[in-house]
């Protein structure tokens, strides 16, 4: 979507988070973006009513404990803005570990990013884990037909099949102080979203220190995907 489209009031921000900011919830991240955009005096479009909220949509909720190299956020404005102008305004108003990678125009009627989501890749750096052992465990997990796990809800617990959500799983080397990296591609669709900590638990690594980073979001139709 590189063509000039200065009339649209919908913008797409690609951003990265790391360090401390990996440890906030997706709700926190929304609030954090709202405040950063307000500091930058970006003319956000607010809902009506008693408790007005700015119109903003993430592509896929980022789990608490995960940084990201590529998140997407759509925001709606009350007056057209140049992407470069937004980038300039945001410089100096973002918390230390939030970085904007790219800002683009999006047609107002483009589908919500969340509807296009298909899969997400994660890289999980681990300590004190031997690569060969982890490879064996991954191979065993992938060989299973079903891996039933329980999702604990506030009211009831739900059983689901984690195996169906794992598309790929592989082990790669990592730099000190980490010993290995676990690369995974998990389904991310409405009602079928894999979480990296669930995969770690299934591998028996629930208690192992880790650094988790989302490395990519994959949309269902390349035509709809923003330019990368």
């Amino acid at each position, binding site marked *: 979507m590189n063509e000039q489209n200065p009339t649209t009031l919908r913008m797409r921000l690609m951003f990265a988070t790391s360090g401390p900011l990996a440890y906030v919830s997706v709700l926190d991240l929304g609030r954090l973006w709202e405040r950063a955009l307000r500091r930058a005096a970006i003319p956000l479009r607010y809902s009506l009513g008693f408790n007005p909220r700015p119109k903003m949509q993430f592509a896929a909720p980022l789990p608490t404990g995960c940084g990201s190299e590529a998140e997407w956020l759509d925001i709606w404005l009350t007056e057209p803005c140049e992407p470069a102008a937004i980038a300039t305004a945001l410089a100096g108003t973002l918390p230390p570990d939030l970085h904007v990678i790219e800002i683009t125009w999006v047609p107002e009627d483009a589908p919500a990013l969340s509807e296009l989501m298909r899969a997400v890749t994660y890289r999980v750096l681990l300590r004190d884990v031997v690569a060969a052992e982890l490879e064996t465990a991954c191979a065993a997990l992938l060989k299973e037909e079903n891996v039933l796990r329980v999702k604990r809800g506030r009211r009831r617990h739900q059983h689901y099949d984690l195996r169906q959500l794992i598309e790929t799983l592989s082990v790669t080397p990592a730099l000190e102080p980490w010993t290995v990296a676990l690369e995974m591609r998990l389904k991310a669709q409405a009602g079928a979203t894999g979480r990296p900590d669930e995969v770690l638990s299934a591998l028996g690594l629930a208690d192992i*220190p880790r650094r988790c980073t989302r490395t990519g979001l994959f949309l269902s139709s390349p035509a709809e995907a923003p330019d990368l």
Partner: protein
Amino acid sequence: MESMTHNQLLNTNTPDPASNLRRPISWETIETLLHRVQKPGRYVGGEFNAVHKPWDAVTTRICLAFPDLYDLGMSNFALQILYDILNRREDILAERTYLPAPDMIAAMRQGNMPLYALESYHPVAAFDILAISTAYEQLFTNTLELLDLAGLPIRAADRDARHPLIVGGGHGAFNPEPMCDFFDIFIIGEAEEVILELVERFSQTRTLSREAQLQALLGIEGLYIPRFYRADYTVANAFAGITPLLPEVPVPVRRRIVGTLPPTPIHQIVPNIETTHDRGIIEIQRGCTHGCRFCQAGIITRPVRERPAEEIIQDVFAIAAATGYSEIGFLSLSSADHTEIETLLQTLQQQCSGLHLGFSLPSLRIDAFSVALAEGLTGSRKSGFTFAPEAATEALRRCINKEIHTEDLLTIAEEVFKRGWRTLKLYFMIGLPGETDEDILAIADLAHELRRIGVRFGGRKTEIHVSISTFVPKPQTAFQWEALADADTIARRQALLFQNLRGRGFKVSWNKYPGTSIEALLTRGDRRLNAIIERAWQLGARFDAWDEWWNLDAWEQALTELAPESFGSVEALREYFMYRERSENEVFPWDHLLSGVERRFLLQDAQRSRAGEFLSDCRGICHACGILHHYANHRGAEWRCPLPKSSKPATNQQTTGNENQL
């Protein structure tokens, strides 16, 4: 003693007890714990507007601590003011720390990780000064936990000049005696007035011993250094007074105050995670002139000092731009008393339309004016309208000096419901001096009456929330001579109220009595409580304000073990500190700390209370509480005490026989 091990572990194998506590902890190390704990965002820092200074570029490093969760501590405005004042100075660096939740504490202890500050991740023990909020008594055991988690000896006597200077301050410091063995210094009064003096003087004493450092600080007004005083007791084990041990030791220590409110911190730290009061804050007024007799804050923050509306408006826009907050909270003990409040809100409404900026106004009065004010605020209808009559009968209101009348209250409630509120929140106290069962039944009657009015205007969805707290006699108030109501009385009255407030449309909540009784014990305690607090903490008492974590058994056992020594029995100890009505001549453990309001004035007010007399708001007529006398030279432009007619200071009638009073 499990709780002692952390300290010992951190200190093993090093000749200098603090050398392994000097280097910053790496992010990678902190990260190893985070996947195991709830809300890890509390422990990582990285907030917008947090100040990061190079460690070696300053001469003095101060860690500001709030000994409870980040979620609460981030909302403490006093620490934000200090953070701002200190970090404005090029030669000083101020960072923050909070007490982690029990899951993180356990993870840190297991991983031998000391408590660290959120900006540079330096261990707290690496700072020159550690200033800990003593805002209220439920923070006391947490303070010991914080010191221990930092790898510091909890007792001042066990620390030396290699350890940070431990400074306390906040409302709890108006009787700091129960904690005096753990702190080096208490700041009495408004710390923003004294902190730079303290830091400057301290920074010139680096080569001295801790004892000598503290002696060098003796000349600074408003500092209470407990080790230079001795507490005496009678043969009957009653507290008999405090004696200074050196000629230059001040008695009394007079509260420091600012003449004019300090500039509002503009670049307020914006937390990355949701906190208790997630908004920008402007202190619009300090002090209160209503003179409620149970209220400590209303005494120890006198005189009333306002921030001019014009300045508040500038601050609103500056804070909104610097933080991105969509809500600004106005801080004061009685918002509607601000002389320019109406213009202020009107102007803001005009200037903020379309900016999606809301305001919250705490502590409104029960009058039509306040209803009109509240109506102008966005979002307040959702959360309900709050009344704090504190007592339901005229007699009891006279006793506590809360000048509201039931007919007025009903009229105003009508106004509230007419304007669309569906929930009314009522705050009452029980266990007040002279209270009878009739007073309790009157609370229920009033709640029913209010619900009927609500139903008339807003239908059956109307809800009345009644929140009951148990009256705790506080030091430095007119009620400091009163007794705490005992457990049976409170239980009976709570039950009575509950029986009469059942059914649809009512919600009743109250503080649990055991928690209240610990607060009551600590708030008027003397130095003998240090050992009990320490023992209770060793046995696992902490987070005393948290229902899910606090540990009554630990307190009970500590009392059982230690009460007999000085008091013979736990019952005798409770009787002495909590259930005993004090005589006029009682010597209090806080008599040497002067809020500026004279003991003589408080005693007269206590007598008025017994006689059922109101004392009017002192904006109109000064009642000579002592403030104008003590702080005549501090008077700023925005003081609300009337100007004295003559220069004659408040007279000093000798009614108490207390030598510590001027």
